[in-house]
C-alpha cells in the first residue's frame, strides 16, 4: 500500500491539473499542491538522501522546516538548489530534480558510507588524515588529496554559473504594526491593529493565510476554521491601511525594529508578469511588531526514526486536511503528548486506517481515549517505538513497553504492520525572530520548550509563539497584541468562539527512546543520539561546542526540529537540566534567503556609472573608455590598427608638438564660500591661500591629521569670499567629507560653506605650443594673451556663445589652459574647441597620454600619494608653510616620518631600453632566482615620446641621495629584470619654460 490522494478534502482544486516533472518523470498534481503534496499523492515515498550516510529519506514535515526532501528546481540552465519540496508550489512546466545521489535517488553509490557509520562518528575528520610526516605527501598534501574526494561527496545540490535572468527587487516599507504569521493569532492581531487605524503589514511564509486554521478542522464562530480565516483575510484585503504579504518569510530582526522579509512574488507562476520580480526583499521599519509565528513540532528520537514513511504528526494532518493526501493507508502514531490524537482523528476521517497509537505516557486522559476510539485506533499507553522496518518505504515497526520514570524498555517487542508512522515529540515555539532581536530564550519545564524572552525591542508575542498552543488562547492573545501594538486600549468585546478538540499542551518529558540502532537527531546531517553522547565524552558539552563538533543544527533547516532534542540528550548525559546546557542564539536568517533577493536591484547593476558631459562625444569619436572609480574616462582615442601604446605615444607627442585636449570634468570641484573661506583654506592646505589674489589660482597640498600627504589640486579664487577648489578624481568625496568634518565639528565658528560642484562644470584642458592660438581663435569677450591671462591666471569669456571660465595651469608641462563651462554646455564648448583646433593639429587625448606627460613632468597622483607618503617623500616640502599651523603640521615631523630610509620619489630610466612594469620592485643587485632586498617600487611608467626612453616614477629608499646611481628593476612576477638609472622625477623641461611660454 502507499500514500494516495483522497477523493475529497483539502483546499486544492481537483478540477485543475498541473503537469510537472521530478527526476525526469512526468507527474500531475492540482492547483494548490506543493511539490511534496503532489508527489506524495502519487505514492512517492523517497525524496532525498541524507548528507553523510546518503540514507534514503522521505518527507518529515509539510513546511519550511523540512530537512530531508530537498530538491533542485531548474529554469533552463539556471539552478535553484536545496529547496524543500514542501515549499515549492507546483505550476505547469515545473522541473525539479533530487540531489546528493549518484547515479539515482533510488540507487545511490555513496550509501556505502553507512557501513562506516561507527568510524564516521562525530569528530572523525579531526582525528585522522594528518598524513605522513615526510615524503611527497607530507605537510598538507595528504589531507588535500583526501579532501578532494571528501568535497565531491559532500554538498547537497549544485549551483550553476548561468546568470539568472530573473529580476530581484528591494522595497523599503514603513508601518505602525508588522504582524508576522497569519494563524488565528496573527489574523486577530492584524484586525485589531487595523481597526485602530494603524498602518499594518501582515506577512506569512505560506501562500495561504490562516496558519493552523487551514488544517486544524476546528470551528471558529460556528464555521470551519479555514473558512473563518478566509473570511477574515478577505475583510483585511479590502482595507487601505493593511498590506497583505503572502509567501513572505520575515527572516531577520535587526536593530531599531528593522525587519527583513523575502516575498516570493512569482516562483509559483509559469510566466511571471512583465517587469515582475521573482523575489522582493522587504526592508520594513515597523514601530512595533506582533510575533505570531507559531511553533514547530519536534520529532521523537528512536532507532529507525529516519525511515521514509516516518513523519511528524501534524504534517500528516496538513497533508490530509490541506491537500487531501493520505501519507499512508495503515498509519501508526507515536507520541509523548496530546496533540497527535487530533492527527489520528483527521487521518481516519480522510480515509486511512489508524492501526496504533503508542504513547510513552502510561496514563491517558479520557478525552484522549475518546479521540483514539474515534480514530478506531488501538492504544498502547506506556509504550514506545523501538525500531522501524522497511527499505525505501516503511513496512512496519516494533513497540515495547516503556517506563516513563527511567526510560527503560520492558518485555518483548511487538511488531506492527504499518506504511506510515507519525510522531510527535511536543512543540517548540518559533522564537527565532525574538532571539535575533537580542534576548535569550527561557526554558519552560511544563511545556518542555524554550519560550520567548522578554522583548528587547518593540514586539509583542501571541499564540503558539508564546507557548499558548490552543486556538482560543491564540485568538485572545492575538487581539490583545494587535491592540497594544497599535497603541489602542483593550475594550471588552466578544472574541470569536472556538470549538476545538481538547488537549493538554504539556508533553511528557521524553525526547529519546534508547534502544539498539541509529536514532537520528539531526536528520539532514545524520547526527545521531550516539554522536551527541560522543561529543559529551570528549568534552564538547556546551551547546555551541555540541553544534560545532557534531554539526547538529547546522543543516539547511538550522535545527528547527532537532535543536531541543539534541540539547535534551546532552543534558541527560551531563545530568543537568536543559537550560544549563544553554540555548543557541538564533541568527538571521530565520530560513534561507536567496542571494539574488539581497542584492535586489543591484543584481547586474552593482554601481551606477558616472559620466562626464562629453561622454557620448568620446564614444562617438573612437575613445576606448577606462573605468576610474565610478567614472568612465577616455583612455585613448585609438586610430584603426593602433595599439594602446601607439595611440598614447601619438597623442602625447602631438600635444607636445602642437596641442592636445583632454576631458578633465571628473576632477573633484568644491565651492568654498563665505567670509572665512580664505582663513579656512589656510588651515586646510599646507600652503597659503589667503594671500592669493582674486582671479588667480594656486596649487595646494593637503595633509591628513597624522601628517601624511592626503590630496593635491589647484584652488581658484573667484571672488574675495568665493573659491573653487579642485581635488583629484579619486579623492573628491573624501576631501569633501574632510572639509565638512572640520567645519561642522572642529571649527563651527568659521563662516564657510562647502558645496560639491563637480557636476556643475565641464572641464577641458587644452595644452601644447599652439594651445593659446587655438583659444584665441575661439574665445570671445576676453583676451588670452600673457598679460591678460598669465600663468595661474583666470579669465571669463565666451566660446561659441557660451560663458566659460579659463584658468591657465598645466599638468602636462605645456602651455595649457583649463576651460570650464556649465556642464550642460560641455559638449558644445568641447566641439567648438576641437573645431578651432583643427587648423593647428589639435588632438584629443586620453588618460594614457595624460599619464605619460605627467610622468615626464614628475607630477604626483594617487599612485604616489598612497596614504603612506609624506610631503617630503614626494619633494613637496617646499609647500609646507612655516608661517601658520595647518592640518597635519603638528604631526608631520615625528621620527618615523622623517627617517632617512623612507621611500622617496625618484625617476627611473630603463637602461636596457625595454618597457618597465608598474608594480615592479627596485633592487641594488639583481637575483632572478631568489629576489630579495627590495629598495622600492615603480608607481607609474610609460614610454616617453619626449625623451625617447622607457621611464618610470618610483618610490625608493633614500631616493634623492641615489640620483645618478644605477639600480635594477626586479619584477619576478613578470620575469622582467634589468638596469635602470635613478634620476630626478622631473624628467622633462624641469625649469618649466614650456609652460611659462
Amino acid at each position, binding site marked *: 500500500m502507499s500514500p494516495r490522494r483522497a477523493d475529497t478534502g483539502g483546499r486544492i482544486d481537483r478540477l485543475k491539473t498541473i503537469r510537472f516533472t521530478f527526476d525526469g518523470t512526468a507527474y500531475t498534481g492540482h492547483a494548490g499542491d506543493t511539490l511534496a503534496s503532489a508527489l506524495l499523492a502519487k505514492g512517492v515515498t523517497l525524496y532525498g538522501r541524507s548528507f553523510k550516510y546518503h540514507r534514503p529519506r522521505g518527507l518529515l514535515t509539510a513546511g519550511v522546516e523540512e530537512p530531508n526532501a530537498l530538491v533542485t528546481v531548474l529554469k533552463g540552465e539556471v539552478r535553484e538548489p536545496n529547496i524543500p519540496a514542501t515549499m515549492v508550489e507546483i505550476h505547469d512546466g515545473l522541473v525539479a530534480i533530487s540531489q546528493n545521489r549518484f547515479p539515482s535517488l533510488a540507487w545511490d553509490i555513496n550509501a556505502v558510507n553507512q557501513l562506516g557509520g561507527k568510524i564516521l562518528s562525530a569528530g572523525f575528520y579531526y582525528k585522522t588524515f594528518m598524513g605522513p610526516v615526510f615524503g611527497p605527501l607530507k605537510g598538507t598534501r595528504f589531507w588535500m588529496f583526501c579532501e578532494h574526494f571528501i568535497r565531491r561527496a559532500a554538498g547537497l545540490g549544485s549551483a550553476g554559473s548561468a546568470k539568472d535572468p530573473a529580476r530581484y527587487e528591494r522595497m523599503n516599507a514603513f508601518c505602525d504594526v508588522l504582524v508576522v504569521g497569519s494563524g488565528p493569532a496573527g489574523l486577530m492581531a492584524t484586525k485589531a491593529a487595523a481597526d485602530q487605524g494603524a498602518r499594518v503589514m501582515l506577512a506569512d511564509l505560506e501562500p495561504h493565510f490562516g496558519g493552523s486554521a487551514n488544517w486544524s478542522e476546528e470551528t471558529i464562530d460556528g464555521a470551519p476554521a479555514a473558512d473563518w480565516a478566509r473570511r477574515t483575510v478577505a475583510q483585511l484585503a479590502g482595507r487601505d491601511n493593511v498590506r497583505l504579504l503572502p509567501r513572505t518569510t520575515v527572516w531577520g530582526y535587526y536593530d531599531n525594529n528593522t525587519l527583513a522579509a523575502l516575498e516570493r512574488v512569482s516562483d509559483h507562476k509559469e510566466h511571471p508578469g512583465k*517587469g515582475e520580480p521573482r523575489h522582493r526583499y522587504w526592508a520594513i*521599519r515597523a514601530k512595533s511588531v506582533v510575533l505570531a509565528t507559531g511553533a514547530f513540532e519536534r520529532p521523537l528520537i528512536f532507532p529507525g526514526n529516519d525511515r521514509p514513511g516516518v513523519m511528524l504528526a501534524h504534517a500528516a494532518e496538513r497533508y490530509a486536511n490541506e491537500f487531501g493526501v493520505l501519507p499512508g493507508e495503515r498509519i501508526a502514531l507515536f507520541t509523548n503528548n496530546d496533540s497527535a490524537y487530533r492527527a489520528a482523528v483527521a487521518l481516519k476521517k480522510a480515509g486511512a486506517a489508524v492501526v496504533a497509537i503508542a504513547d510513552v505516557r502510561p496514563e491517558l486522559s479520557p478525552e484522549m481515549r475518546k479521540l483514539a476510539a474515534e480514530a478506531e485506533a488501538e492504544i498502547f499507553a506506556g509504550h514506545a517505538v523501538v525500531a522501524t522496518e522497511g527499505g525505501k518505504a516503511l513496512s512496519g515497526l516494533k513497540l515495547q513497553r516503556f517506563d516513563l520514570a527511567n526510560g527503560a524498555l520492558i518485555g518483548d517487542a511487538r511488531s506492527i504492520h504499518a506504511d506510515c508512522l507519525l510522531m510527535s515529540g511536543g512543540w517548540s515555539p518559533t522564537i527565532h525572530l525574538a532571539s535575533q532581536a537580542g534576548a535569550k530564550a527561557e526554558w519552560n519545564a511544563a511545556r518542555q520548550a524554550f519560550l520567548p524572552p522578554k522583548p528587547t525591542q518593540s514586539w509583542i508575542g501571541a499564540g503558539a509563539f508564546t507557548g499558548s498552543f490552543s486556538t482560543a488562547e491564540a485568538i485572545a492573545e492575538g487581539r490583545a497584541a494587535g491592540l497594544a501594538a497599535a497603541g489602542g486600549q483593550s475594550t471588552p468585546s466578544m472574541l470569536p468562539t472556538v470549538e476545538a478538540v481538547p488537549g493538554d499542551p504539556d508533553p511528557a518529558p521524553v525526547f529519546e527512546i534508547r534502544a539498539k540502532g541509529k536514532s537520528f537527531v539531526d536528520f539532514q546531517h545524520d547526527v545521531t543520539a550516539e554522536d551527541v553522547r560522543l561529543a559529551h565524552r570528549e568534552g564538547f558539552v556546551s551547546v555551541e561546542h555540541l553544534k560545532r563538533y557534531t554539526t547538529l543544527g547546522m543543516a539547511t533547516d538550522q535545527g528547527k526540529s532537532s535543536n531541543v532534542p539534541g540539547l535534551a540528550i546532552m543534558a541527560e548525559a551531563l545530568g543537568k537540566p536543559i537550560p544549563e546546557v544553554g540555548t543557541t542564539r538564533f541568527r538571521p536568517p530565520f530560513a534561507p534567503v536567496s542571494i539574488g533577493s539581497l542584492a535586489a536591484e543591484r543584481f547586474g547593476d552593482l554601481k*551606477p*556609472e558616472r559620466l562626464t558631459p562629453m561622454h557620448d562625444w568620446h564614444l562617438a569619436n573612437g575613445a576606448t573608455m577606462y573605468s576610474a572609480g565610478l567614472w568612465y574616462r577616455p583612455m585613448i582615442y585609438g586610430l584603426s590598427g593602433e595599439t594602446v601604446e601607439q595611440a598614447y605615444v601619438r597623442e602625447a607627442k602631438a600635444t607636445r608638438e602642437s596641442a592636445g585636449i583632454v576631458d578633465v570634468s571628473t576632477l573633484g570641484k568644491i565651492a568654498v564660500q563665505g567670509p572665512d573661506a580664505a582663513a579656512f583654506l589656510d588651515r586646510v592646505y599646507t600652503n597659503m591661500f589667503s594671500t592669493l589674489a582674486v582671479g588667480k589660482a594656486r596649487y595646494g597640498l593637503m595633509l591628513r591629521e597624522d601628517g601624511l600627504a592626503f590630496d593635491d589640486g589647484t584652488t581658484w579664487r573667484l571672488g574675495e569670499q568665493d573659491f573653487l577648489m579642485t581635488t583629484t578624481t579619486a579623492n573628491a568625496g573624501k576631501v569633501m567629507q574632510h572639509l565638512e568634518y572640520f567645519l561642522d565639528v572642529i571649527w563651527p565658528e568659521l563662516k564657510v*560653506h562647502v558645496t560639491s*560642484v563637480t557636476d*556643475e*562644470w*565641464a572641464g577641458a584642458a587644452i595644452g601644447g605650443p599652439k594651445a593659446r592660438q587655438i583659444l584665441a581663435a575661439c574665445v570671445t569677450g576676453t583676451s588670452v594673451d600673457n598679460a591678460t591671462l598669465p600663468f595661474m591666471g583666470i579669465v571669463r569669456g565666451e566660446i561659441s556663445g557660451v560663458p566659460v571660465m579659463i584658468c591657465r595651469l598645466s599638468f602636462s608641462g605645456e602651455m595649457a589652459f583649463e576651460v570650464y563651462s556649465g556642464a550642460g*554646455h560641455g559638449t558644445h564648448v568641447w566641439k567648438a574647441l576641437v573645431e578651432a583646433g583643427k587648423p593647428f593639429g589639435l588632438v584629443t587625448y586620453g588618460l594614457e597620454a595624460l599619464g605619460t606627460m605627467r610622468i615626464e613632468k614628475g607630477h604626483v597622483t594617487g599612485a604616489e600619494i598612497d596614504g603612506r607618503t609624506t610631503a617630503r617623500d614626494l619633494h613637496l616640502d617646499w609647500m609646507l608653510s612655516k608661517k601658520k599651523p595647518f592640518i597635519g603640521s603638528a604631526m608631520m615631523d615625528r621620527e618615523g616620518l622623517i627617517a632617512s630610509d623612507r621611500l622617496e620619489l625618484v625617476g627611473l630610466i630603463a637602461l636596457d631600453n625595454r618597457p618597465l612594469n608598474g608594480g615592479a620592485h627596485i633592487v641594488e643587485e639583481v637575483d632572478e632566482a631568489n629576489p630579495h632586498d627590495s629598495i622600492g617600487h615603480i608607481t607609474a611608467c610609460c614610454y616617453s615620446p619626449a625623451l625617447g626612453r622607457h621611464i618610470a616614477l618610483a618610490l625608493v629608499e633614500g631616493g634623492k641621495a641615489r640620483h645618478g646611481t644605477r639600480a635594477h628593476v626586479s619584477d619576478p612576477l613578470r620575469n622582467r629584470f634589468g638596469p635602470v638609472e635613478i634620476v630626478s622625477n622631473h624628467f622633462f623641461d624641469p625649469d618649466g619654460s614650456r609652460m611659462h611660454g
Partner: protein
Amino acid sequence: MVEHQSPLEPEFHVGSHGNFEHGVEIILTETRPGSIVQLAAWPGEEKRLIAAIRTVTGLALPDGAGGGVSDGVKSVFGFAPGKFTVADEAEGLAAAFAKVVTSAIGTVTDLSHGRTAIRIAGPKAEWVLAKFFAIDFSLPAFPNGAGRSTAHHDVFAQIQRTGADQFDIYVFRSFARSFWKALCHASEEVGYEVQ
C-alpha cells in the same frame, strides 16, 4: 541661448514601456529647470534668507525642517539645516539671489548645470520610489511641497513632493543617466510612460 544638453538624451525614450498593457501607472519626465540654486544661511540668519527667497521667488516657505512649496514654475525646499534648493523654469536665479543674499546672510551656489531634475508621477510613484530610497513616502510623513535629502547607494538625491502622487528628484548630473535607467527599469512592473 544655447540649450543645456540633457544627460539623459540617449536613454530618454518618449512613449509607453514595461507592463503598460495593464495601464500606465507611472509618468516619468525631466523637468529641465532653467536654473537651480542652493542657498545656505549662516547660523541665525535663516529667517533673513527665507525672506530673501520670498523676495526673489514670491514663495513663502512653511516652517520646519524640510519644508517647501512649489507653484509649478518655481520651487523651493529645505534640504539641510539652513540650506535650501530653489528651482525655476527661467534662467537667472543665481544672479537674482546674488543681489539679495548678502555675505552677512549666507551664500548662493549656482547648480543649474550640476543637478538634473527628474519628475515621477502617477498612482505608483510612492511604490517605485520606495524601491530606491529608505524614506517614508506616504503623504502624512512626506507632505506636499516638502523636501528630503536621501541617497540610493552612491546616488545622492534631493526629493520634493510636488503633488499627491508627484515627486521631483534632483540628482547629480553625472549620475543622472544611470539613475534614470534604474528608475525606468523599476517602473516596468507597473507600466510607465516617458513624456
